């Protein structure tokens, strides 16, 4: 169905995903810093990054079903989307920890005491090995089977 898109998409380099993600995060930060995200920009930016990261993660998970059911092949973008998602999650964490909560003691208290923060931190920890091994060298070193198993952590 959608496989006619495969050919034009082949001309889009995967690094464009990194550039677009970084530009989007930068733009959101600019809006927040210049008072264009409402009277309380800290929460607004925190939520904007979180929701963008979530969208990227949903996009990754859609790649396989899309290929299966519509023939649309986005496999070559998967790593770029995944690693971008990781960086956006780190940006989300940074806004929360540095701009919102502000002190390490309170950050730690929140991670331990508030279940939704605990879940968020656990998700980030799960993403960490995937981000670290998202390069060809790690893939060769681990072997395809082990690498795939690891990446099922998503």
């Amino acid at each position: 169905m959608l496989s006619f898109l495969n050919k034009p998409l082949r001309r889009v380099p995967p690094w464009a995903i990194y550039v677009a993600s970084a530009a989007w995060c930068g733009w959101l930060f600019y809006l927040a810093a210049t008072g264009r995200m409402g009277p309380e920009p800290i929460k607004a930016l925190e939520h904007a990054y979180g929701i963008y990261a979530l969208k990227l993660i949903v996009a990754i998970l859609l790649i396989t079903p899309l290929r299966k059911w519509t023939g649309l092949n986005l496999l070559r973008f998967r790593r770029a989307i995944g690693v971008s998602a990781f960086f956006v999650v780190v940006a989300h964490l940074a806004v929360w920890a540095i701009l919102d909560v502000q002190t390490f003691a309170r950050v730690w208290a929140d991670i331990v005491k508030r279940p939704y923060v605990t879940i968020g931190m656990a998700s980030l920890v799960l993403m960490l090995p995937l981000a670290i091994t998202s390069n060809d060298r790690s893939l060769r070193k681990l072997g395809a089977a082990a690498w795939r198993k690891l990446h099922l952590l998503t």
Partner: protein
Amino acid sequence: MARRWTNTLTQADVTPEHLWLNRRQILAGAGATGAAALLGSEASAEALEPNSWDEITNYNNYYEFGVGKDDPARNAGGLRTSPWSIEVNGLVERPGTYTIDDLIGGLDLEERIYRFRCVEAWSMVVPWNGVELNDVLDRVGVKPEARYVAFETVVQPDVMVGVRRKVMPFPYVEGLRLDEARHPLAILATGIYGKQLANQSGAPIRLVVPWKYGFKSIKSIVRISLVADEPPASWPMLNPREYGFYSNVNPKVDHPRWTQATERKIGGGLFSQRVPTQMFNGYEEEVASLYDGMDLRIFY
């Protein structure tokens, strides 16, 4: 009965809106030291600097108009505030349906610059215009059996998107113990910065109880009932573990999902620092005696 509270802050302490803007421009441009010297004469460095009208009217919780902070500003335009009537009933000498003028006309209209602390750990400073609830209660006549005051917000489903989506049970209801309601700090407000309340701020008349979390300060009131028993309040009904009837600002009792020890002042921008929350929102001296002998960890 409590002594009449005298406001030490006056209109002179409100930074006029044009100076507010000036100050920001100057701070953004030149160094802060130069700016302070420039403005020293007209806008003195008062302890409580009110938020701007724009901030006050663009960051609201008014779930009848949606759950987002900017939803009320966007959606409250259709609220019909005139004519307005308030039903006063229960244990009162003169029950009935009052217009706003019947209820507060002729009473002392005062300017009250109060800290406003939301349960969500953000805060503002608002220059309210209003009358003491105490005076209103005297006007309607409180029977001796009355121990609590209950309030109810208007419901206009055709213009209230949150009501149609049933985001929580409506009408929104709140209550105070009679001695809290009689406290001179508690007011019924009709304006901010000398202007009529914006719809999203609770037009045409709302409660302001500055030592309690903001959700106690019920908006757009259509019913005031004097009752003998503790009346239901919307948030404690919805989630009694997280919200109590008293809901006094208390940095030592955390909300289950976040700390109440600190708060963020709205208007400080992306890099604003959290500040410590004060007991009873800074009104401890005035109101602490209302709660003598009560364990505020239990009655949160």
